[in-house]
């Protein structure tokens, strides 16, 4: 087995040990999903205008967010990697015959996958059974569904590439708090975690279009509901690939620079 697959496997095993955390997360996510939808229901019933997304599309969007939260949330932090850097255990990582960027990305990827596997099935089962208007809808077509899966996975890679930048910044800052806060605030809004991007004012939408964040949340979830038609989705997938290449390339460069002048903390 390759080192990367193997670390994913071990991370997976590691993640599966935290059953209670999964159950707690599950109820939190159901709760938040319901609250968000209630707000949107009130919002939709209070306006006469036709909005750019239908209520059922928004409901589906919210549930997808909650189901795949662990895949897409940027503020999730992996304390292990921070600890490696600030505590000096990175010395061991550097004695291994692997490329650090790929190795750490594999760790991050695995942690997110392990979390989501534990949580997504039970939430999915519940949200398809809820009464209207809270019920989640099926994807618009098989094509949409397959494109959704592809774009979700690519979105996950974008998320990992952005969070790698946060981890690498710790080489200079020695504390992840600042980087995380900045990314959390920016990404929450700009990725469409708070409100879907079509519901934003136009000037804000323009900003989101030039940043990578919307490709992690807004894009895959609207592909699912067919709000972004398949032909457009294919273009989007190309743009996702572009962002992955740019972010990973930049991250690798930063990491190389960091390692050249790395100081192993703590003797």
């Amino acid at each position, binding site marked *: 087995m390759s080192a990367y697959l193997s670390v994913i496997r071990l991370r997976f095993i590691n993640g599966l040990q935290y059953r209670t955390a999964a159950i707690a997360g599950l109820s939190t996510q159901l709760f938040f999903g319901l609250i968000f939808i209630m707000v949107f229901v009130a919002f939709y019933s209070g306006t006469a205008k036709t909005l750019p997304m239908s209520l059922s599309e928004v409901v589906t969007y919210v549930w997808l967010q909650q189901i795949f939260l662990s895949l897409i949330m940027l503020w999730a932090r992996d304390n292990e990697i921070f600890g490696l850097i600030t505590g000096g255990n990175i010395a061991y990582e*550097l004695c291994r015959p*692997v490329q650090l960027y790929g190795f750490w990305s594999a760790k991050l990827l695995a942690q997110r996958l392990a979390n989501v596997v534990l949580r997504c099935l039970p939430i999915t089962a519940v949200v398809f059974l809820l009464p209207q208007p809270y019920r989640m809808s099926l994807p618009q077509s098989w094509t949409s569904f397959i494109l959704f899966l592809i774009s979700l996975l690519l979105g996950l890679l974008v998320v990992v590439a952005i969070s790698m930048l946060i981890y690498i910044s710790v080489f200079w800052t020695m504390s992840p708090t600042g980087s995380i806060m900045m990314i959390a605030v920016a990404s929450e809004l700009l990725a469409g975690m708070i409100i879907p991007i079509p519901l934003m004012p136009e000037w804000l939408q323009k900003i989101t279009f030039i940043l990578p964040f919307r490709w992690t949340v807004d894009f895959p979830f609207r592909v699912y509901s067919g709000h972004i038609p398949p032909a457009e989705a294919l273009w989007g997938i190309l743009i996702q690939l572009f962002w992955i290449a740019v972010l990973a390339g930049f991250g690798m460069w930063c990491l190389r620079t960091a390692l050249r002048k790395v100081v192993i903390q703590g003797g």
Partner: protein
Amino acid sequence: MIQLEGISKSFKVAERSAGFKQAAKALFVRKHRTVEALSDISFTINEGEIVGYIGPNGAGKSTTIKVMSGVLVPDRGKCSIMGYNPWKDRAAYVKNIGVVFGQRSQLWWDVPVIDSYELLRDIYKIPRAEYKSNLDMLIDTLDLQSIIHMPVRQLSLGQRMRCEIAASLLHSPKVLFLDEPTIGLDAVSKIAVRQFIKTINEQKGVTVILTTHDMHDIEALANRILMIGKGTLLYDGSLQELRSRFGTQRTITIDFERHGQPVYIAGTEQLSWTPERAVYSFDNEQIQVAQVIAKLSEQVNLLDVSIDTKPIDEIIVQLYKEHQI
């Protein structure tokens, strides 16, 4: 096999005095001091040697180990280990070495030890058969059978250290760097670890470089000592040489039948005296043991005699003092 030439490394350290005022001042003006961790270190180590690398805290031992294991890039100097440059050919080089940092852990905290080993197997791409025979050997000699399926967090320090050492040897490295492998271990675990290091050196021809503060480690293992202080290499030689340089001092403890008057012997120093027991110290080169005993037995009725050489710890302290480190 291992060659270091003129290796130097300095660190920039931020510092300030204590207190609120100083802390506030440091917001605007930072004082930096450059600390020379290593300056012009050169040595050669041959295949199959066990070398003890000693020196007081902060002398640069760990920094040297980190440079040699490709973790740190030195400012100046050349280093060639098995033909590799550790920091330039890092990925290719580290396949051939094993490293244990005694104060750190390479095992995954929440999962059983064996899972970490399997990850290492995949990272180092160890062939199945080799992995199995290495693992069996390590389980056997380090007595890991009962602990290998336990999560790391439930292991004691000694158990964990044995697992850490095993983890560094799964890929049959040719060179093993041990940075304080016996730190915090009880006597039994220390002996087990030493025994094991000796075994792999003899049976597999692994070259071992170990840093330690425990001179018994050195006594039990190393035929050669490198001593470093304030970033410079101060001593390179064998333990016997060191002993003969400083170790001519002997102490003699005698028990005798009750004797009222203290007895003094020319050429020795009386360290303590009670009517039944006395301790003298003398220099072996100036007066011989037999002479001392003979002179003593003329004056008292000896019941028991024991002679001790100067403990290695004291020799090292003397050496540190001599170099003012």
